[in-house]
């Protein structure tokens, strides 16, 4: 089906929302509480649009597409509402983008920028709330929270760890861990799902912050988690050829095995790749000690000793442990080496362990 958005004819499929269709066509509509993984929440009104034939403003994150629909995303009424949404959020919080970890990857900042808001219309004086640094992996900053509810929904119903919830009423409403405990003392399992969906800098990873590297300075590459058999798809963020942080890969998340979720190991357990303990050169034993050697020395020695063992005791006197951590290609190569080069089926790995 087709609809018209701001005068452009746009493709859509049944079941999509107007927001989905607009985004797929590259038309910007801000959406602060909606996230593809947590669904519509109808909390923020950032996403309102006008539709011919429908009265008033409509939340595009909750509006199903209809063939022939004519949508306007930038009418004066729409802009006025967005402006009000932004004004209130900026006034309530402490949004100091200058020092924020989310600077350049913040959906509120994007929205303000698109609206051309230079400064908030008003300010509400309030005492800053201290940052919550109790959790080793995640920093919370309540003053940057825009109460969109994504993290609560994700923690309660996505990863179902049931830690985050809204507490207190009215202007005191806040997201809390368990009975308002510091995150590090709560039942939080540090899966990082809440960080993954938070649109602003209220929930951020500490790893990049401690290295003073913001998201836009990194390159993301999709890898497979090296730990359990779920095979989570992870965007590994690097800078200068070093690990910085990890996020779940979100592209086509519904078709990925992990649905863009991770656990503590995939989220925080990958910095070993840069460990100073990494073995960086071949070693051979000389006079009882393991000492550095060249590749030719090491490989010649291996070849020579394997040949000797085979000649002396036969191919079946040599065994191979392949690995559940290396790739299929490498497992195949070692299998071919054991079978075709050495001539033994003595090959196994630790599937049983």
């Amino acid at each position: 089906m087709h609809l018209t958005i701001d005068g452009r004819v746009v493709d859509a499929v049944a079941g999509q929302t107007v927001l989905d269709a607009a985004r797929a066509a590259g038309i910007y509509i801000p959406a602060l509480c909606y996230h593809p993984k947590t669904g519509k929440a109808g909390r923020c009104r950032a996403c309102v649009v006008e539709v011919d034939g429908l009265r008033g403003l409509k939340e595009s994150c909750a509006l199903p597409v209809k063939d022939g629909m004519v949508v306007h995303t930038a009418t004066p009424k729409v802009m006025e509402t967005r402006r009000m949404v932004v004004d209130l959020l900026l006034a309530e919080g402490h949004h100091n983008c200058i020092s924020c970890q989310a600077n350049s990857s913040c959906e509120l900042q994007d929205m303000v920028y698109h609206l051309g808001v230079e400064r908030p219309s008003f300010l509400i004086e309030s005492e800053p709330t201290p940052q919550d640094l109790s959790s080793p992996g995640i920093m919370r900053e309540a003053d940057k929270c825009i109460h969109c509810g994504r993290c609560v929904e994700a923690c309660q119903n996505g990863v179902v760890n049931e830690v985050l919830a809204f507490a207190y009423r009215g202007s005191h409403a806040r997201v809390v861990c368990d009975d308002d405990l510091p995150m590090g003392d709560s039942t939080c399992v540090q899966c990082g799902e809440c960080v993954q969906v938070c649109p602003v800098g209220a929930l951020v990873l500490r790893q990049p912050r401690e290295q003073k590297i913001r998201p836009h300075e990194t390159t993301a590459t999709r890898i497979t988690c090296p730990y359990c058999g779920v095979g989570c798809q992870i965007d590994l963020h690097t800078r200068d050829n070093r690990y910085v942080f990890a996020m779940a890969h979100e592209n086509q998340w519904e078709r990925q095995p992990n649905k863009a979720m991770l656990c503590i190991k995939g989220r925080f357990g990958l910095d070993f790749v840069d460990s100073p303990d990494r073995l960086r050169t071949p070693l051979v034993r000389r006079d009882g000690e393991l000492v550095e050697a060249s590749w030719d020395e090491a490989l010649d020695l291996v070849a020579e000793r394997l040949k000797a063992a085979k000649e002396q005791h036969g191919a079946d006197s040599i065994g191979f442990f392949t690995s559940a951590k290396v790739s299929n290609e490498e497992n195949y190569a070692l299998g071919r080496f054991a079978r075709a080069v050495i001539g033994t089926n003595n090959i196994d790995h630790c599937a049983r362990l």
Partner: protein
Amino acid sequence: MTNSMDEVLKAKVILVIGSNTTWNHPVFGSLLKQAVKHHGARLIVCDPRRIDLVDFADIWLQQRNGSDVALLSGLQHIILREGWEAADYIRERTEGFEEYRKALEFYTPEKVEELTGVKAADLEAAARLFATSGVGALYYCMGITQHSHGVDNVKACVNLALITGNIGVEGGGVNPLRGQNNVQGACDMGGLPNVFTGYQPVTNPTAVEKFSKYWNAPLSDKVGMTLTQMIPECGEKIHALYILGENPMVSDPNLHHVEEGLRKLDFLVVQDIFVTETALLADVVLPGVTFAEKLGTFSNTERRVQLSIPAIKPWGNVRQDYEIIADLAARFGHAFPRTPEGLFQEIRDLTPSYAGITYDRIREVGIQWPCPTEEHPGTRFLHAGKFARGLALLTPIAYRPPAEEPDVEYDLVLSTGRIYEHFHTGSMTRRSSILDAVVKTGHVELHPDEARKLGIASGDRVIVATRRGRIETTAMVTERVARGSIFVPFHFAEAAANTLTNDALDPIAKIPEFKVCAARLERVSSQGG
């Protein structure tokens, strides 16, 4: 797994046995909790420990360690007695029913209560729930396989799924959760002593001929030795070992034996990213690279072949693992492909189930094998309509107790496993600053009753002793373990659980009995006093 992970959302009833899912496969654990919380699935958890999933369960069966066959057979006994079995499915798709039924007669609820400690009434309720709720899915992990009768355990799971008609059905299946990111792939690639890639037996002359021709080399048609058989043969039948990315000095049972064995070798090569406990014993150590530095495919627990892209350029005098193997092969006059894609092409040529998968097809989303042609979309669940062997065999299973049971001297049941924050031998997670900060070292879980009896409090240093060894570690008093049981995670070399474990093996799968052995606890000293 016979089925895909997200099919759990379509199951009406789920039985989890021997898998602490939310710790060991946390993201699948989340899908499972979604199934219960949002899709109305009923959940039965069978586990000696009060694992976190119990909070989401309709029924928790707390069987004694090592009594899984009795528990699973008890459920089947009740299902047949009540006539809840899928009679048409059994008739059309299985064989061996009569003998199987006879073997089940032994497992009356009363007998099962005696063997497992599970109340007959709870067993009846679980049997009713599993058999009468609709599509049922079964998930298991090392808690089922790591026993001296692990193969029986698995067969008992399969039997249960078969008589309830749940294999070859969307949302059902018998689903082993694979513990490491490429266990599935290592098996698919023939990293086993009895099969080539794609499970083509080394004893099948046609397969031998095919591989021999393709590799242009004569091949052995004799089944090789498993890892757990090779270790005790070191210095006897085995004179040289080549270990790629494994650390048996922490992961294998009865570590004293492992060390003795490795020291008896004429020659030991270790190819790894760290100087592991095992590499310290090697004659040559070859530096490979990590997952983050590789191009290549990994196959997850649901048979999904996924492409991983290098995120970091390796530096230092290291080489890609496939390069190292090719360099060695060259010294024997064999030319191996020198790119991952070249190797993958050989895999496709030799392995029908991978033949249709190309790097281009899986650049964004992986494909689940079997995928025989480039037009084939891959396979979400196996055995739809027909089993590879025609009819599925219902196997009669006799009950066997664990190889070692508690006695006067060693009065506790010890089981080992993983914790949420760490992985396997710890060589990776313990070098991750955050994970290391969260959990620094090992511990032993014990029940408050035991703690009271022995005068032990959380944080006390204690000795865990078995017939094979002893370790000193810290006590953690928790109701997660049953009375009379203790649990030690195996990630920590300084308090290596595998100094304690029994290397009794399953007679067929050669899996060691990590989940049950007899142990004793002693107090060392109180914290600060």
